[in-house]
């Protein structure tokens, strides 16, 4: 197959994103993590693909490779999609270093849309890491649509989180950490300290 004009070889069980990364071609992602199942939610990894003369925009983290597929990781349209997505997310987390760096690359204006400082961009890294790697499900999505947020489940978090907290490092905005400590303060204050003292 071809990515950005280069011939690239890939195993047939790979996604376009895996093939590109193997070939050293960078595609930006926010919700992707190698240890986790592809999620396809942030849509930052969208690329242009062309097969049998038809052009399409797909998320590379899920799109399977195919013989003779032509992929363009940058184009005016791809860049526009990434720019608007960044502008939408910057309304929530205007100072996230990851977003700020990408905003510079894609000329995204962080003040374009009305601010809604929820900090979380709902990439789901914490939720999925806890479910897939730790298999604890201590943090999950609640609500739907524009009201969706992450929430630590106090009963599970009280038992599982105090000596884990591995999701904090995955969070692009530090909101996971904030949400956890808020849950702790509200639902089981002092529990973590007691746990540390006992350990």
């Amino acid at each position, binding site marked *: 197959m071809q990515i950005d004009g280069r011939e690239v070889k890939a195993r047939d069980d790979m996604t376009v994103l895996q093939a590109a990364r193997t070939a050293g071609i960078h595609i930006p992602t926010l919700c992707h993590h190698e240890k986790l199942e592809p999620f396809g939610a942030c*849509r930052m990894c969208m690329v242009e693909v062309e097969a049998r003369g038809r052009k399409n*925009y*797909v998320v590379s983290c*899920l*799109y399977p490779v195919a013989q003779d597929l032509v992929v363009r990781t940058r184009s005016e349209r791809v860049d526009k999609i990434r720019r608007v997505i960044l502008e939408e997310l910057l309304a929530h987390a205007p100072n996230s270093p990851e977003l700020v760096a990408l905003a510079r690359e894609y000329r995204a204006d962080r003040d374009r849309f009305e601010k809604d400082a929820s900090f979380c961009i709902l990439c789901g890294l914490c939720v999925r890491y806890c479910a897939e790697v730790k298999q604890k499900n201590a943090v999950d999505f609640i609500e739907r*649509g524009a009201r969706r947020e992450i929430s630590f489940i106090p009963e599970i978090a009280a038992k599982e989180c105090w000596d884990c907290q591995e999701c904090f490092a995955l969070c692009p905005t530090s909101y996971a950490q904030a949400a956890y400590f808020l849950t702790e303060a509200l639902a089981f204050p002092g529990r973590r300290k007691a746990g540390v003292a006992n350990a």
Partner: protein
Amino acid sequence: MTRLESAAELEHFRAGIVAARDPAKPCIAVCAGAACHGLDSARVAQAFRTEVGKLGRDAGLEVRVTGCHGYCEKGPNVVVGPDDVCYFEVKPEDAPEIVASTLKKAVVERLVYAHPDTGERAVHMGEVPFYKHQTRLLIGDNVRIDPMRIDDYLALGGYAALAKALFQMTPDQVLDEVKKANLRGRGGGGFPAGQKWETAKNAPGKDKYVIVNAHEGEPGAFMDRALFTGNPHKVLEGLIIGAYAIGSHRGFIYTRHDSPQLIRHIEQALAQAEEYGLLGENILGSGFDFRVEVHFDVGIFVSGESSALMRSIEGLPPEPRPKYIRTSVAGIWNRPSNLNNVETWANVPQIISRGAEWYAGIGTAGSKGTKLVSLSGNVVNSGVVEVPMGTPLRKIVYDIGGGIPGGKAAKAVHFGGPMGGSIPANLIDAPLDFDELAKLGAPIGAGGLLVMDEDTDMVDVARYFLEFLTNESCGKCVPCREGMRQTLKVLTNITKGKGRDGDIARLEDLNDVTGAACLCALGRTASDPLKSMLRYFKDEYETQIARGSEGKGGKAAGSAAT
């Protein structure tokens, strides 16, 4: 009742039902469709039963509680057969008079249709303007069927198409017939049903599923509910025929948890069909097995999206699947799953019994058959309408719908609810056609037609749809969740007179990316209403934005824009 073991037994049984019925005997059909039910038609039906009960065993007329007749505006509806005398806005206290007149073969003049302008009367269904311009192939039987009684469906020739398919046709021939008929999906996409069936049929795997999408969740769409509640066996028969063609032995009906009447009718239909040997093991002795189970939604619009619906059947939250493999190849539990909506399935029996050629003779080059339309908004006659594809929208809005109330002018017609589009009134001669309307920017969608008069604020219409969608999106992917959230904010500001310079560009960018980048069809088509508004009504948006900018001293408010 013993099971019917062959096509001959079915025909024999049917002949018995028909013979026991006197076609000349008057039958009072009381509509119990959603709108009439809301107007307490149950009390009307009870009044008729009491009245007829007084006449004793040989009353010489019967009362039937049926599904939706269609003319919701004028409910509670009562139709008296065999001549189909239509009475409108019937109250329980009208029952004695109607019964007495019917026995005398007379008509209660004060309850028949009178034209609002000319006062001209119309007594029979075929003369009432709302009905006479329609072609009611699917919904017409509703008047003759008590949905709780399979015998009523059999009396009208029900399940003959199934018998024909099972005993006179191979699965491939059934598939070919549906392909030749060019039946296109009525759920929104207009995708050719035969092609979808073929994909599922040819997909590898032994276990395949067929599904009825009865999750009609779009505001302003109520025709699937009217059809399925009023004539559940028609849909079920279509599903069984489809299963036979595809090679599926397990079907699902996915419907709303909040329509108790519909649920009751579906469950009764399944039980009766099974009792008669029309469902379950060895259907009509043909050797074909097929079972159906009913699943309910969890109260969210997106569960009607095909991949979300399938996750819901699996027992998972109804989030659309991020996969580039079609559900007809890998759907429920990753097995080939063919999903069609209520109206699509309901078309199947007539295609089999009357043939693809007959069916393809109705409609336009690309859109065949009739289409159910939920007509509502600023229109004199709201209700469920069925017309041949290709019918000009003007005919639906004016001849059938009776035009705009209050002597006002039409401003726009909107098709397809929150994922559809609005076209201005000057395009009202456009035909009801999947491709023509999609080109104009008002794709038929499921078939909800909303008429808007000259007083309608088009910014507020878009805002209303966006508000619905932001609450109904699953919230997983950014361009849907965030794109719609921001679009709604911009629109809300404009309607409050707080529009800013650059709002049009903001809306266009948001809409463009939502339409291109969303994970599922809900998100991608959520941009359609606004797209059509910016295509036809941009000046209205600009005027309202300008009003906002001026009010706040012009440009300053929009300094961060574009």
